[in-house]
């Protein structure tokens, strides 16, 4: 894929946006130019930054928990064949339920505020990270274990020198997916019941019918998510190529 292809895609999307705006008008949309302007203004506004910080903080904590717990659960389950067979349907089921349904329960446990947001984000991210890590471990080619024994490595050395490298690409894919889902979870949490953060701002703008703010915020979130995801994707691809 040449470097100019994503640029072409972005141009197409922006052009489509502009055309849509011209067709529909100010009643329902704002133009790309206007939205970028609003976004720039927001980023410069001192009252805006605390909300960004709130969301980032919640997200970072949620992501850290999701990675730690997800990897722990995934690797432990993946190491045992029986555990894998027992747990896989459970994990898959957990993956497909609308986790938003659980949010009131989380609020009841943690109360409104940062801990609830973090918990919500975390539960979104834990499951895919665990599933991918589990599969990464399960799918390690048995030949690697044999090689470790032939080279007379201790179990810890085998794990750290060989197995981790073998499982890494799948694990990174899981973390990439977990990143995206944790972000969604954190944001959803803020949209549902919060007093601060970007999600909250989004809902506030919605109730005030503040078109500019809604589109600017949406654009900001999309840009953030897309750029980090692109970086993680590049890393993902590189790791998979080496395998």
């Amino acid at each position, binding site marked *: 894929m040449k470097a100019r292809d994503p640029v072409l895609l972005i141009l197409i999307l922006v052009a489509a946006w502009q055309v849509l705006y011209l067709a529909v008008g100010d009643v329902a949309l704002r133009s790309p130019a206007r939205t970028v302007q609003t976004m720039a203004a927001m980023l410069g506004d001192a009252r805006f930054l605390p909300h960004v910080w709130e969301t980032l903080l919640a997200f970072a904590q949620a992501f850290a928990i999701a990675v730690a717990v997800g990897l722990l659960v995934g690797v432990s389950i993946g190491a045992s064949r029986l555990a894998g067979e*027992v747990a896989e349907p459970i994990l898959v089921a957990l993956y497909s339920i609308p986790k*938003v349904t659980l949010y009131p329960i989380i609020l009841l446990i943690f109360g409104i505020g940062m801990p609830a947001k973090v918990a919500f984000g975390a539960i979104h991210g834990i499951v895919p990270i665990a599933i991918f890590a589990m599969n990464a471990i399960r799918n390690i080619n048995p030949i690697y274990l044999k090689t470790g024994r032939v080279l007379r490595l201790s179990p810890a050395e085998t794990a750290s020198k060989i197995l981790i490298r073998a499982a890494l690409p799948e694990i990174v894919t899981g973390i990439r997916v977990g990143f995206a889902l944790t*972000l969604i979870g954190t944001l*959803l949490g803020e*949209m549902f019941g919060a007093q601060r953060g970007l999600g909250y701002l989004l809902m506030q*703008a919605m109730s005030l019918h503040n*078109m500019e703010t*809604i589109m600017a915020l949406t654009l900001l*979130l999309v840009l953030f998510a897309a750029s980090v995801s692109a970086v993680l994707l590049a890393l993902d691809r590189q790791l998979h190529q080496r395998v």
Partner: protein
Amino acid sequence: MKSPGLLRAGLILLAVGALEVLCRTGIIPSLTAIPPSAMVASLVEILRSGRFAADIVATLRNVSISIAAAMLVGVLIGTTLQSLPATRRIFDPLFATYYAIPLYAFYPLLIVIFGLGDLPQVAIGFLLAVMAVIINTLNGLDRVPKVLLKAARVHRLGPVKTALKVRLPFAAPYIFTGFKLAVAYSFIGVIGAEFITSNRGIGYEISFAYNNFDNPVMYALILFVLVVVTTINMSLYVWEKRLLARRLR
């Protein structure tokens, strides 16, 4: 060697049992959670009284529309793109990053544009589901062995008949995977949207019950959603495995 199915059932029973005990002994306060037995009782009562029948119907209908739209549009776009490789390559980055974008962020926008009806929820469900269908349709069509296309030409099938009688039937199990995902995503999208803002539907009622400290109703409805969605998704998962097993390719 215990069967994994039995172990799993046992584990789940254990978890539910522990929850029951913790609730009944008051370790988990009743303001936070009610015991599983009470959840089931409340659900049975709700279903019998038909109190939320309209909401259930509304949600299921919106989910179905989302699924149908996603399948129709998704398979069409997927099939078209697969035969236009240059165009497809341009959109590749979109396929790769689509699910990283918080699509729910578009929900407020949709509400402001379309108002507070069913359309924004269906739209969110559709947006979440359609990409999975496109990606899996592409995947399935990519896998059609070249020799089958050659055989189709020898039978003098022409491009449309080849697509309908050879390429799509071959890709069917993979398109089914897309269908399975479309179902899961539609539920997630519609119910999630109902939660955030809506004026009817199961998600809305759960949110309403929460705001009114009505734990029995809230937990009953949550249980209902979990059971229904899990049953549907699991059935599709099993069905998908069987479809893929029939093919050796």
